[in-house]
C-alpha cells in the first residue's frame, strides 16, 4: 500500500535521470549501485538534457535503457573512440563512456589509451569486475593471479597469460589526463567516495578540464561463484591489494 501523509516524508527515490526500465543485472552485482550514482550525479549537475551515454558491449550493454538521456551503443571496446566522435561533433554535449574491463582494457586497449592521451574532454567509467560477465565468466585482463574462470579452470597462471593489468596506472603515465581514480562499492564509505569521484569526473567535463577516468572495482557474484556478501569481502580484502584504491592523477 502506498500512502503519503503529512507525517510521512519521502527520503529516498529514483534519480530523475534514471528510467523505470527493469535492471538486467544479477543480484549483488555492483553495476546497479553505480548506475544509480551516475543518475544522481546527472541530476545534481542538471545536465540530463545534454548528456550522451556511450554503452559498451558487456553486461552493461543495456546502459542505453537506464538513463533518461540520449545514448549510443558502441562496438566492443570502441566506446572511448565513439565518445571522441560525439564530443568533437558537439563539444557542448556531456559524453560519458561506461565500459567493462574486457571492453576498456583488452579489446579496446588502443581506443582507451589514445582517447586519454588526446585528453578528450570526456568522462569514462571503467568497471573492473575481473571477469567477462556477459559471455560466461571467462578470464579478463584484470583477473587475479590464480583466479579460476571458465577459461582458466586451474586458475590464472601468470607464466601462461601474464598478470592482472593495472590499466588506470598505465593511463596515469600519460601527460594529458586530468583526473584518474580507482574507487570501490563494497561498503557505505566506499559508495560515498565513489559518488564524490563520479561527480568530480562529470564536473571536470562540464568545466572543460579534460579527460577523467573513474575505475570502479565491482563484484560478479554469479561468475565468481560467491554470495554477494562474500563478494564484497573479497573486493575489500583481496582485490584492493592488487588494485589499490585512491586518486592516481588529479590535475584539475
Amino acid at each position, binding site marked *: 500500500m502506498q500512502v503519503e501523509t503529512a507525517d510521512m516524508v519521502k527520503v529516498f527515490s529514483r534519480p530523475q535521470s534514471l528510467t523505470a526500465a527493469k535492471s538486467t543485472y544479477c543480484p549483488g552485482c555492483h553495476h546497479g549501485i553505480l548506475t544509480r550514482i551516475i543518475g544522481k550525479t546527472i541530476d545534481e549537475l542538471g545536465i540530463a538534457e545534454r548528456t550522451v551515454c556511450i554503452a559498451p558491449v558487456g553486461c552493461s550493454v543495456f546502459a542505453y535503457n537506464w538513463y533518461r538521456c540520449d*545514448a*549510443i*551503443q558502441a562496438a566492443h571496446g*570502441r566506446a572511448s573512440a565513439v565518445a571522441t566522435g560525439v564530443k568533437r561533433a558537439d563539444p557542448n*554535449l556531456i559524453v560519458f563512456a561506461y565500459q567493462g574491463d574486457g571492453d576498456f582494457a583488452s579489446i579496446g586497449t588502443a581506443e582507451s589509451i589514445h582517447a586519454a592521451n588526446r585528453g578528450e574532454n570526456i568522462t569514462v567509467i571503467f568497471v573492473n569486475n575481473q571477469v567477462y560477465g556477459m559471455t560466461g565468466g571467462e578470464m579478463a585482463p584484470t583477473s587475479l593471479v590464480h583466479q579460476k574462470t571458465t577459461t582458466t579452470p586451474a586458475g590464472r597462471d601468470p607464466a601462461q597469460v601474464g598478470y592482472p593489468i593495472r590499466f588506470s596506472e598505465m593511463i596515469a603515465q600519460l601527460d594529458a589526463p586530468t583526473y584518474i581514480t580507482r574507487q570501490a562499492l563494497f561498503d557505505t564509505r566506499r559508495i560515498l567516495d565513489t559518488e564524490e569521484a563520479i561527480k568530480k569526473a562529470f564536473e571536470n567535463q562540464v568545466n572543460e578540464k579534460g579527460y577523467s577516468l573513474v575505475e570502479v572495482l565491482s563484484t560478479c557474484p554469479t561468475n565468481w561463484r560467491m554470495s554477494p556478501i562474500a563478494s564484497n569481502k573479497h573486493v575489500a580484502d583481496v582485490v584492493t591489494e592488487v588494485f589499490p584504491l585512491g586518486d592516481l592523477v588529479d590535475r584539475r
Partner: protein
Amino acid sequence: MGKRDLLRGNEVIAEAAIRAGCQCYFAYPITPQAELLEHMARNMPRLGRTFVQAESEIAAVSMVYGAAAAGVRTMTSSSSPGISLKQEGISYLAGSNLPAVIVNVVRGGPGLGDIAPSQCDYFQATKGGGHGDYHMIVLAPSTVPEAGELTMLAFELADRYRTPVMILTDGLLGQMMEPVELPEPIDPASIPAKPWATTGASGRDPNIILSFDLDPEVLRQMNLDLQAKYRRIEEAELRYEETMTEDADLVIAAHGTMARIAETVVRRAREEGLKVGLFRPITVWPFPYEPLRELSSHVSTVLTVEMSAGQMWEDVRLAVAERAATPFYGEMGGIVPTPRDILSEVRKHAG
C-alpha cells in the same frame, strides 16, 4: 565557366567533402590516400571543423560512428588494408542507420599487397564486407572531376537514406592530376534535419542509436526495414553510363579507372571499324543489372575488364546470363592494363 584548378583525385575528394559540409573527418595514414588526409589536416581546423588523426582505422571509423550519431556530416578515408579494419564500424553504421562517407583508394592486395592501383576490393565494397545482411551505396568515379561530384552526392545520399556510402576509387585516380572545376559549396541549410540524432534530449524523449536487440522478432524487423531501404535505393539511385552502345556488337563493361581507359579503347576500335561500346556502372552497388540485361540482348559479347581477378565480372554474368558471351580480361597486383592490351583482347572477341 568557373575557375579550373589542376588537382589530384585525392585532393578533389577532400575538397568536395569540405564543400559538402563535412564537419568531422577522422582517418589513419596509408598510401595511396595520404594527400586526402593531408588536405583535411591543412583545411579542416582553419574552417573550425574537426580533423583527428586516429590511432587506427578501427578508431577512425568508430569516431565517425559517434559523429554521425551526433548528427553531423562526417567522413573517413583509407586504402585497402585500412578498409578491412573499418569493416566492424561500417557494419555498425549500416545496422544503426547512420549516414557517413567512407573513401577507399584501393591498392593491390591481398594482405599488405602493394601501393599500386587496383580494383580488388570490389567484392568487399559491394557484397557487404563486414558482418550481417547489409549493403552500402558504392560510387565509382572514373575521372578526377567526377570524383568530386560523386563525393558531394555521397553525402547527400548518406543523409537521404541514413546509410554509409563508399567512394570506391584507386591509387591511379587518387594521385592523377586533372583540371577540375570544383563543385560549389552546399548551403548548410539544405542538409536535412536529423531529429533522430543524439544531440541531447532537450524537450523530447531520448534518442538511442543502436544495431542491437536480443529479441529475434525485433531484430528481424530491423533487418526487414534495412532490406526495404535497399529496395528503395535500387529503385531510385541506379547510375550508369553507356558510350557508343547504340550500334555496338561488343560492349566493354568496366568501372572507375578501368572504364576511363576503356573509353580510349572504344575510340580506337571504332577507328578500326569495330562496333565497340562501353557500359560503365557508376553505382557498383546498387549494380545496374536491368540496364545491362537490356543492353546484352542487342550485342553478341560483353567483355568485362577489371584490375582484379574478375569480381565485377560476377555481377556482369548475373545480368547478362546467357544472352551474350561474357569473356573477361583483367590484371592484378597493381598492373594497369593499357589500351593496347585491351584492344587486342577486343579484337579477339569482336566479330
